[in-house]
């Protein structure tokens, strides 16, 4: 019998999830995009069914964050029953143009813009105050 990609761990016919699994070490996050039993925690070293990609959340010298996705296998797993996709992965796939853009991405973008605007406003006010004092 061929050995499963899990390394021999059993796969039950239960809900599975495509999600980010934290690898790396303290203060240096690195994520694997994996498919695993949805009841497993994604924080420990639990057996996964298959690794589908990686996500490096720290910017490199060129100001890029790197995501790699095995689109063939992701399509395969999305076509299966009882597979859900975590929000983080949905956002990444949305930004990639593989899925629709996730609403959470729009919310995030809106928040960032709002905070930047508020900051600029408060900065302007502080400057005006200083000018009037001086």
């Amino acid at each position, binding site marked *: 019998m061929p050995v499963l990609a899990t390394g021999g761990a059993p796969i039950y016919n239960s809900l599975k999830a495509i*999600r*980010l*699994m*934290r690898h790396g070490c303290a*203060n*240096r*996050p690195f*994520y694997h995009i994996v498919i695993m039993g949805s009841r497993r925690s*994604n924080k420990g070293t639990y057996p996964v069914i298959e690794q589908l*990609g990686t*996500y490096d*959340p*720290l*910017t*490199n*010298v*060129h*100001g*890029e*964050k*790197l*995501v*790699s*996705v*095995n*689109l*063939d*296998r992701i399509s395969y797993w999305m076509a299966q029953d009882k597979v859900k996709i*975590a*929000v*983080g992965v949905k*956002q*990444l796939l949305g*930004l*990639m*143009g593989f899925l629709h*853009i996730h609403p*959470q*991405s*729009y*919310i*995030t*973008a*809106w*928040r*960032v*813009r709002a*905070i*930047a605007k508020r*900051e600029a406003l408060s900065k302007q006010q502080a400057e005006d105050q200083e000018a009037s004092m001086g």
Partner: protein
Amino acid sequence: MALLERTFFSLTSKLNFKGMRHILIPDTPTIVIPVRGAKQKYHPDSFIGFRVEPRENHNRQYVSHPLIYKDADPAPRFMDARVRAILKDLTGCDHSKVFRHRALLSISAPEIVFFTDEQLKIAQNDAKIKADKLLSMPPVVKVRAEEVQDISFDPALQGIMPNFKIVFTDISLGIPDNKRIIVVRENSGKLRHANGAERQRMNEIYNPRKGRKHYVSELFTAKCLPDVLARGQYEFVLDRACLQFEPDEPEYQSVVAYVYEALDKKQHYDSLLSTRHYGPMLFFLVWHKCLNNFLEHHLMAGRLDVASQVVKLYCLLHQKSDVAKAMTDFRDPMHVVQTFVSLECMDTSARVQLALKQCKELLRSQQQVEQNVAAALGQSS
């Protein structure tokens, strides 16, 4: 004891909760981007946390050279069977050079085997096939296009990635590097295909090749390359360039053009004989019409056949030139070279004409010697 107590108290008073708060969290607000499973704190202006500082080798620049194949595409001409036949013919195949011991390969003692005539024939044939493989020329193609294709633009995503962009790479199996899907999402909400440099970087990360460096090797910088070339290590640099780059990269074509130019100045063409770089080097010289040194070198040595072959190549590559129009018959090498020199080298180089003159004299004296020998042996021509 009293002293100890005092220091202890002074420390604790400094490290109260309020003080810690003040030290750890600055007044400026932080933004939490809620990617579940990947929570990160961002500062609106700059990334707080780890930041990879550029090392020295990230600032290095490859040598640049203006003579890269950027206007017309040389590939169809290079793939032309007649052109390849000439290039292969002129490269030659000296087995002692093709099969020489390379420093990097493991050294083994030569094996001595007794062969019958048939076995010897088979072995020689095998060696010929192997040599052909070793001498296969690196492709000469047009430099890659720099413009990138936009896929979509979503202004509602503006600001989602302050000060960075995300590069997505498809790592499905069985896809060649040049067909791999690589896209970039920018802060403005634009999704576009990756440009050449990004593609090359991603391919190197997700599909590394043995011997390739992920940083700019000092060998290819303007600091080191002239020294290496002054030592005459042309083949070494060209081999390394073939390993490091793809043929359509502007960096590859610049490095290679730089080497060819240095080699052309010193007329060290023979150092590339029986290597895979001789053909592309000759193609480069003919394509960019810098043949004066090459012709001078070979005419001075009396190699008229080489010169005439190169002129033939010139006619194939520049079919609209005066020489190609004037040339009808390639049978007499002297006539071919003379026509070329009179049409192309008239203004540019007097040295080529001088070399042609010397070549003529050399050939005449050789003929004279042959006649004298024949006469001395009592043979009449």
